[in-house]
């Protein structure tokens, strides 16, 4: 089997401890790091994401696959940087102030990394200002906000307003998600997008980055 397909398949099968070895092997076989990323790791995580979306697999399976992906990414990242390969985009992500839920947010981070994005995860309970500060500091073009409580959702609006107040609207896009968060809420607060699940969040972020470029 093609080594890149083997990498993807190992992620899909949850053989996380094989991934780093296969990536090393691919590098020895002179595969380009970007090919290994795109046709190996990203291709595998795409399938994992789609299976999770259909609930053919569950969160533990995704977490195992993510572990394999991270092991592979750790090997590729310095090589990609050396070759000056840009990431799919840079995104700052976190659960908003007052919200300590992070399972959904972590899942989105995994899927974004698995799709080749450079993700800065600010964690949970993050105040509005820190999102915008971090986006500016790190040159992120997308801010991802998660909330699981109806009571913390207004913080999302604060972030959108702060992005506007700092004259970043259009250059820094805001995407929102979380169980109580809807497309209608995103529109109401002026956010650029809503992701209804982790896989959808990746699609929407891709679209935001493409539209901004």
């Amino acid at each position, binding site marked *: 089997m093609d080594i890149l397909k083997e990498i993807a398949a190992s992620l899909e099968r949850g053989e996380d401890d094989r991934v780093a070895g296969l990536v090393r092997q691919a590098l020895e076989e002179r595969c380009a790091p970007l090919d290994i990323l795109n046709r190996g790791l990203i291709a595998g995580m795409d399938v994992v994401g789609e299976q999770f979306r*259909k*609930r*053919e*697999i*569950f*969160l*533990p*399976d995704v*977490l*195992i696959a993510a572990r394999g992906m991270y092991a592979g990414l750790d090997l590729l990242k310095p090589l990609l940087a050396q070759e000056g390969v840009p990431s799919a985009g840079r995104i700052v992500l976190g659960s908003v*102030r*007052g919200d*300590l839920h992070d*399972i959904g947010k972590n899942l989105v981070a995994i899927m974004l990394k698995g799709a080749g994005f450079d993700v800065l995860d600010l964690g949970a*309970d993050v105040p509005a200002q820190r999102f915008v500060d971090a986006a500016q500091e790190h040159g992120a073009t997308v801010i991802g906000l998660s909330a699981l*409580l*109806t*009571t*913390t*959702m*207004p*913080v999302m609006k604060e972030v959108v307003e702060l992005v506007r107040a700092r004259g970043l609207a259009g250059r820094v896009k805001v995407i929102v998600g979380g*169980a*109580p968060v*809807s497309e*209608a*809420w995103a529109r*109401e607060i002026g956010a650029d997008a809503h992701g209804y699940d982790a896989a959808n969040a990746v699609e929407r972020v891709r679209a935001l980055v493409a539209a901004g470029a």
Partner: protein
Amino acid sequence: MKSLLERLAAGEVLIGDGAWGTLLMTRGLEPGEAPEVLNRSRPEVLEEIARLYLEAGADLITTNSFGGSPARLRRYGLDGQTEEINRAAVAAVRRAVGGRAFVSASVGPSGHVLKPYGDGDPAEIGAGFERQIRALAEAGADLVCIETMIDLAEAVLAVRAARAVAPALPVMATMTFERSRRGFFTVMGASVEQAARELGEAGADILGSNCGNGSEVMVEVAREFRAHTTRPIAIQPNAGLPEPRGGETVYPETPEFMAEQAKALVLAGVGIVGGCCGTTPEHVRALRAAVA
């Protein structure tokens, strides 16, 4: 007073209470603050909420200890106060209800994903549940209410902890399911059938589901539980799934709507009907009237 399990065995339908978080927030709980802090700083607020639900007709009143496991309190640097915080949670509800309702001692998830998928050490998480439940039991809880669980392994740890340190107390264990094309599963992948079997084997007296779904969908969850267990079933739905309305987000199910569904829940064989996110004393009043 007849015991909880005797009343359920006799076919009586008991009413649980509704959401606490929103009521705590309108009474001074700050965003980002551990709700359990109020147990010691403002117990009068807990007593007031417990009385609201008691007056609305609840037979079980939940304690403000959902996040009272040491693993969870550690996020706020409060794990050293696990015993005090959990005892205070029970004491406040006891004072308010004075024997007129069962004090249902809430135990929520640890907030860690268990190994090998996450960083949670099962032995440590289990010991943490024992520590929390011991304090809840010593303070006079009438039952242990393990709720909003998504990982069956963690739920089983909590049930076993309760059985070990509070063998005299009934244990209720409810999980949060999502509907998929293949049926109901928790996000960690436990089916209703697995939950019914493993929670039962671990020693839970009452099984069921809370949170994650509105009352209509919960009727289906209840039917599935009934197909897989002979034990009493508890169902505590959200007031639907939140919708944005005029700059804020509201839970759409009215007390009247939920009361209608409560009748279907009872027909499906549910013994305890209560509410989760978005439900209020008005919802509980309507539930009480519907199943009276």
